[in-house]
């Protein structure tokens, strides 16, 4: 597909769909690093005009990453539903943007968008997002409904869940327990208690799985745990009879990215089946949990598409959601600012990417969360995270990541704090997952309307939680 577009008297040529998608993407450092970004703002505007005219059906005949060599493309193409696509099959990319905004403004939008999801490919969704402003990403993202369940129900309207992330530099069980206690006292953990182990040894992973299961049972808390080891480690734990709740894996939007993570679709399928075999969910059987992030393909040198051209990082990220939805996850979060300024340079780029990822995932039917985060060499700060959290809450994000004091002392980056969750719940009236909320009410940490107060350590029966560990 070769396109030319004239704006302001200047003519611009785009020599493929891959090229057009990349050049229509709002500025970000990762696309500049990959060498696929527009070289001027006017070229970007021209690309957006041209992309707006592309028929959605083009994405079903023209591959961004070759079908023959990439199983992610095969998954996307082979599972596409022509029936679900029918209502929008006549539209262009620009037409879909208008259509989505019209649907989002009507009642019953959630059902319409849920029915549409199997008819959209990640590339169509990514393309549409490139024509949307932040408010469009929020408005349509908010209209989507993706609800999943395990021991809690995540994604219900008016609610936002949190992952409690009690990481520790040496996986010390008492230290992890202390950070879990801190989070529970501030009402966090209804999406998952999810621990990134510092080491990937099966024994450490097993000890952490057992720790959270003990806490859950001792205090009768409706929650699920995940230890974010490699999926093969988790499958091994399941075979060894450990109380594994969620099966985690980092995934990306190309086969080569997934190879760099040591996985393929067959292994993800095996992991999901292992999780399902335990029948540990009580309100649902969504047993997988995935993390993604713009830039992961480029950092693995796994970002080349049709014609050997670099695919922009946002389109590749949307393709990762195309992988995820095949495995019906309970949770997926983009780790949006973690990867560093060579992919997302500053607060503006991180905020935009967080909203894009949420929109694309939700529209594809993925239960999107966001790790609202940054590293110290990015041009970002706590104010930027406050802004992104508030925008994502307005957009109806299913869950966010929370850590003690916003400082992840194991991974060395800043996420949100447990306190940040209290802030946004209070300001926007967002409630916890209903099962977890019931527990908080019973503990005196929330009132029957769902307003969360948290509790002081000395006044809570949870204070013995750490003492029992070890």
């Amino acid at each position, binding site marked *: 597909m070769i396109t030319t577009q004239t704006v302001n008297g200047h003519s611009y040529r785009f020599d493929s769909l891959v090229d057009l998608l990349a050049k229509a993407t709002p500025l970000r450092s990762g696309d500049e690093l990959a060498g696929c970004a527009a070289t001027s703002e006017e070229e970007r505007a021209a690309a957006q005009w041209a992309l707006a005219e592309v028929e959605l059906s083009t994405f079903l005949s023209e591959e961004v990453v070759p079908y023959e060599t990439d199983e992610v493309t095969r998954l996307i193409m082979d599972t596409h539903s022509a029936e679900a696509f029918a209502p929008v099959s006549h539209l262009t990319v620009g037409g879909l943007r208008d259509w989505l905004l019209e649907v989002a403004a009507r009642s019953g939008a959630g059902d319409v968008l849920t029915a549409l999801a199997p008819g959209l490919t990640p590339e169509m969704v990514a393309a549409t997002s490139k024509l949307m402003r932040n408010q469009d990403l929020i408005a349509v993202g908010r209209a989507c409904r993706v609800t999943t369940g395990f021991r809690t129900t995540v994604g219900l309207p008016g609610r936002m869940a949190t992952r409690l992330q009690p990481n520790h530099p040496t996986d010390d069980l008492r230290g992890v327990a*202390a950070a879990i206690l801190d989070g529970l006292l501030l009402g966090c953990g209804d999406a998952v208690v999810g621990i990134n182990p510092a080491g990937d040894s099966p024994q450490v992973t097993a000890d952490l799985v057992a720790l959270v299961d003990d806490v859950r049972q001792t205090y009768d808390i409706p929650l699920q745990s995940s230890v974010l080891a490699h999926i093969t480690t988790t499958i091994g734990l399941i075979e060894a009879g450990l109380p594994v709740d969620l099966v985690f894996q980092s995934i990306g939007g190309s086969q080569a990215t997934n190879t760099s993570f040591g996985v393929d679709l067959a292994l993800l399928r095996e992991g999901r089946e292992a999780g399902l075999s335990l029948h540990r969910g009580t309100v649902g059987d969504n047993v997988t949990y995935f993390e993604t992030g713009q830039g992961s393909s480029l950092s693995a040198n796994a970002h080349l598409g049709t014609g050997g051209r670099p695919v922009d990082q946002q389109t590749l990220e949307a393709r990762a959601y195309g992988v995820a939805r095949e495995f019906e996850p309970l949770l997926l979060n983009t780790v949006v600012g973690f990867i560093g300024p060579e992919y997302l*340079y500053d607060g503006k780029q991180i905020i935009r990417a967080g909203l894009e990822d949420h929109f694309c995932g939700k529209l594809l039917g993925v239960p999107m969360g966001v790790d609202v985060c940054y590293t*110290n060499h990015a041009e970002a700060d706590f104010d930027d995270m406050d802004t992104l959290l508030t925008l994502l809450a307005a957009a109806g994000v299913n869950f966010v990541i929370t850590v003690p004091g916003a400082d992840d*002392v194991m991974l060395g980056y*800043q996420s949100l704090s447990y*306190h940040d969750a209290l802030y946004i719940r209070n300001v926007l009236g967002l409630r916890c997952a209903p099962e977890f909320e019931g527990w908080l009410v019973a503990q005196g940490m929330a009132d029957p309307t769902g307003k969360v107060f948290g509790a002081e350590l*000395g006044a809570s029966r949870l204070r013995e939680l*750490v003492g029992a560990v070890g």
Partner: protein
Amino acid sequence: MTEAVPLDPWAALRPTTQARIGLPRAGMGMATTTVLELSTALAAARDAVHVPLDTGALLPGMTELGLGTPIELRSRATDRALYLRRPDLGRVPEGLDGLPSGAWDVGFVIADGLSSRAVADHAVPQVAALVKALGHEFRLAPPVLVTQARVAIGDWIGEAMGVRTLLVLIGERPGLSVADSLGIYLTHEPRPGRTDAERNCISNIHPPAGLGYAEAAATAARLVAGARALGRSGVDLKDTSGAPELP
């Protein structure tokens, strides 16, 4: 009226983790002291990234080590903003003029990396400890100071100088709690194109809280000897002493 200072109910738990647990609240937010502590920690981290390395201040100390006159170089990343956006430019020197060559066993490249503070605080004493650990056995090259630099820039420098085993001392990405951590990357027979899998790393050097200079130097000496015996560095080279060796 005096009030008793309330005991911190978290006191017994704080030693279990560096995580910022049990922070005081103000309503649904954090107390003023906590917010100021966090912004101060962020300020230290951002200054570590953005304050330029004062190489002039390092030269007297480097010269006193007796390794010959230190050489100063720059990468192709012309400023910090470009350095942060283009890691590829930080891996290539702007030029190699002025580098001496010789039959040296071990060379030292001191690179600002992502924390100028780590280099300013720890590079001279760390090289001194390395000289003490290596100097009686090996011929040591003059140190090279390089700014806006990533680890792989050492491959060009090491090859140009004819160094057999190269140690790159570089400022590590600052966390919120530690802004001055230094790392040492060892590459045997450095040349452009070496991958990170062909290097060994000693991380988290920032005494007194982190790894000490003598301990890091002892680990480096074992790795240098091991690389020379094995003929390569990287994933096949293990430090079997049990000393901390991070990936």
